[in-house]
């Protein structure tokens, strides 16, 4: 059964998203997996609005409150050593309760460390990344921040990225 992508949304909002004109840009980029999963280094990417509370600023939610047609396009680095209690959630479009209880529902750092220990993946990279998913205009992502994250991944020898939008 195909998944109904709009099932969780209130009717009017679902209808709005369903009606958006979308353009598929070809060709879709393609990088064949270079090596067996058991040898790959992974980085995680989520759009859950996560940040390291003691080290980094939150996402700019006040800016979004002033202009609801704008969402903070920056990103935060989440290190592999991050513990649950160090992680904050800044995202005005979801209930953050489960992320604050178990961040692995969207950024599975513990699960990837377990797979690393079990030899099921090569390793989890030092850095994973969180964006904040409300982006009415994603041109800053495309031109600036996604290329920056991709470059950092290359510097850390990442082979594959596991992405979890919220």
């Amino acid at each position, binding site marked *: 059964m195909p998944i109904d992508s709009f099932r969780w949304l209130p009717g009017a909002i679902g209808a709005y998203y369903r009606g958006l004109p979308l353009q*598929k840009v070809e060709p*879709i980029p*393609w990088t064949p*997996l270079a090596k067996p999963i058991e040898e790959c280094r992974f980085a995680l990417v989520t759009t859950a609005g996560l940040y390291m509370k003691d080290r980094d600023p939150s996402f700019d939610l006040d800016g979004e409150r002033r202009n609801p047609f704008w969402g903070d396009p920056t990103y935060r680095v989440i290190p592999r050593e991050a513990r649950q209690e160090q992680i904050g959630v800044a995202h005005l479009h979801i209930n953050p309760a489960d992320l604050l209880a178990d961040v692995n529902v969207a950024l599975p750092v513990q*699960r990837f460390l377990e*797979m690393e220990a079990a030899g099921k993946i090569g390793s989890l990279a030092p850095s994973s990344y969180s964006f904040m998913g409300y982006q009415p205009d994603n041109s800053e992502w495309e031109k600036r921040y996604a290329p920056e994250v991709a470059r950092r991944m290359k510097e850390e020898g990442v082979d594959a990225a596991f992405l979890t939008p919220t």
Partner: protein
Amino acid sequence: MPVLARVIEAVGISTVIVTPMPYFAEALGVPRAVGVAFPFGHPLGHAGDRDEQMKVIGDGLRVLREAPGPGTVEHLPYEWPDFERWKREWQPAEPSPIVALLRERMRAQAEERRADPSLRSE
């Protein structure tokens, strides 16, 4: 998220997305994705459910390994119980700024129509 995957893939890093909205992965075109019938904020399943999270991650890694080419989107069969409760539960306690603003505009338009009968569509 499709744009993030495309930019990362383009520098030579293989990507896979786990998304509650496979519609957009299909319409915009992404290298590889799996769709989940899970509420927003829960791409890998329930908080505290390690087995469920591992199952979804395993499917993601399988598609990462086996996808024959760009635009591979697989819909996973896992269900999310208690749909009616979770249709509210995933949402923030307060409506987001854009939802609050659009609701306000719709309310204002409805009031205008009431005040001026010539604006009624019937």
